[in-house]
């Protein structure tokens, strides 16, 4: 599949000890706020950004993102608004963009239209946490055609056979889910996570991203040498909501420092 994203990540890894992927729910708190978040991400030299397309039934998300999805929909974010935002972000910023969302959006749009709209607006790939490998159908081929990376999720509950088939079907990088549960709750970095990452590494040489519950520069430092990419989602939105813009900026700076 599209090797461009993998190559980009490998090049970045020559300069940093660990890469940083951040996240925002498009339309929450507002498109203007999303834009300011992206500006801060650019300043912090973030390596990759997930733009969440809001959905009414976000079963893999924790309370903060559930609320964000809901409010974004109330703010009237539809497909057009989402892709318009993605297109603008693609033109303005350097980092690759991924769609994260739920399968019903792709299903309702139609697989063709989903892939062509993503490609048209500059996405490098997408993550649909409720779409398992065996349900992808022609999305695999269509993604290849449009040079999109469908990002696969590895979890610590996977048995070896499933982990292997997910890893061998991976594209771009692998998203390793640090623990059970949904987004939001805090994850303790411990040897169990390192073992899990090793299991993923056994089946794939794609870059490994670790996500769910990471929040500090210290987390990133501890992950160096184990994961290639750290994903920060809830922690950033939480600090934006609780402490505001300045604190958001300092957390991003703290994270940026910890990638070196």
């Amino acid at each position, binding site marked *: 599949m599209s090797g461009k994203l993998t190559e980009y990540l490998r090049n970045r890894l020559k300069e940093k000890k660990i890469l940083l992927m951040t996240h925002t729910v498009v339309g929450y708190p507002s498109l203007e706020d999303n834009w300011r978040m992206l500006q801060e991400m650019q300043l912090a030299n973030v390596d990759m950004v997930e733009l969440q397309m809001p*959905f*009414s039934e976000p079963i893999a998300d924790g309370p903060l993102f559930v609320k964000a999805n*809901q409010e974004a929909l109330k703010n009237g974010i539809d497909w057009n608004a989402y892709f318009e935002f993605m297109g603008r972000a693609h033109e303005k910023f350097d980092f690759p963009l991924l769609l994260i969302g739920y399968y019903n959006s792709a299903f309702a749009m139609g697989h063709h239209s989903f892939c062509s709209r993503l490609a048209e607006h500059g996405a490098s790939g997408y993550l649909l*946490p409720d779409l398992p490998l065996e349900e992808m159908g022609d999305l695999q081929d269509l993604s290849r055609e449009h040079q999109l990376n469908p990002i696969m999720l590895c979890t610590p509950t996977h048995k070896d056979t499933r982990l292997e088939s997910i890893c061998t079907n991976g594209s771009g990088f692998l998203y390793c889910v640090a623990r059970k549960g*949904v987004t939001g709750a805090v994850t303790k970095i411990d040897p169990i996570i390192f073992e899990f990452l090793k299991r993923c590494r056994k089946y794939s040489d794609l870059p490994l991203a670790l996500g769910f519950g990471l929040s500090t520069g210290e987390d990133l430092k501890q992950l160096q040498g184990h994961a290639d990419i750290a994903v920060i989602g809830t922690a950033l939105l939480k600090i934006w909501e609780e402490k505001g813009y300045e604190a958001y900026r300092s957390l991003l700076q703290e994270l940026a420092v910890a990638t070196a």
Partner: protein
Amino acid sequence: MWSDIFQTEKPGYYGQFGGMFIPEILRATFEELIAAFESAKTDPSFWMEYVQTMQSYSCRPTPITYLPNLSKKNGGAQIYCKREDLNQTGAHKANNVMGQGLLVKRMGKSRVIAETGAGQHGVATATMAARFGLECKIYMGALDVERQRPNVFWMEQLGAEVVAVTEGSSTLKDAINAAMRDWSASMDDTHYALGTVCGPHPFPTMVSYFQSLIGQESREQILELTGKLPDRIYACVGGGSNASGLFLPFLEDKGVELVGVEAGGHGIESGAHAVRFSSGHIGVAQGYKTYFLQNPEGQMMHTHSIAAGLDYVGVGPILSHLHDEGKVRFSSATDQEVIDAVRLLIRTEGLIPALESTHGLAGLLRESREMDEEDIVLFNLSGRGDKDIFNIAEALDDPKWREFIHQKSNEYRRSSN
């Protein structure tokens, strides 16, 4: 055999409907559940244990009752009903929870969680948990917690923790999301006892399997009572469990027409209803593919019904498949038709139906008067209504009840001052 319907080409798929659209973190848990269910299904002692449990704990087999007064008053076909209202906790929900409870024991788990809309499935799950010594947590939309205090009271008395879910529309679909999230962290010791024939595989199959006891008994009983099979069978359709349970054992009986009745709310034109089959579109949410009430971009819409148990955006994938195949016909009944039918059944036969079940009856009454006197129609009285006294008294707009509530509330106010 009717049960061949469960032998699908692609596991968990009924035509294009069903499937397992779940976060990967739950994959191994679903595989474990599928294996446990398959092994139980092939073990004859499991079904026997299930039937015996339902006999000794839940009054099975529930009878079929002939309704001569109602038949006469409405005219046309002779009306019979299957008395699922006589189950433990007053609804067919008991069948499913006891079945899943026995499975939980086989899997050796110590905790159950469940979603509930009306509170019916929550109460049933809480009784099962109490009986089997399991820890129990029930997720319930905050709006439903407000509307259904008596059921919340019973769940808590039964030792369950009730969590009010405030996200989304604060109703059943949101409670399902919340239960899924709990499960994705707690699966090691926890079973999610989903309450209807929806959600990811194996729930639609498994819940239909347990509920099929309704149809299996009904088929024998009606033959014995009348010497023939009914011409039409009616059931209300929320998620679709009481309908699937009644319909499936009649699937191969060519002369029996199966009719599902959805919640027409204030009428389809009003937009306030839960009619998935004529107004919904195929989509994927809550872990499965089916007809959902959703907007063109796949966002779920708000639903409405006078019966909280029918107020849901999706519908069982087996029913969607049978709908597309033309094997089950669907109609709907409005809130007003349901209120009229409740009054009529109470007065003519002394049976107090749940508002949910009355949708099936209302759909039947509209059609059976056009039928011959020799024709036989059967509906599923899936639950009793006296437990829902607050809702029914409100639906019937009874002034004396209102007065009583005012008085009670004043008493409480005085005693807390």
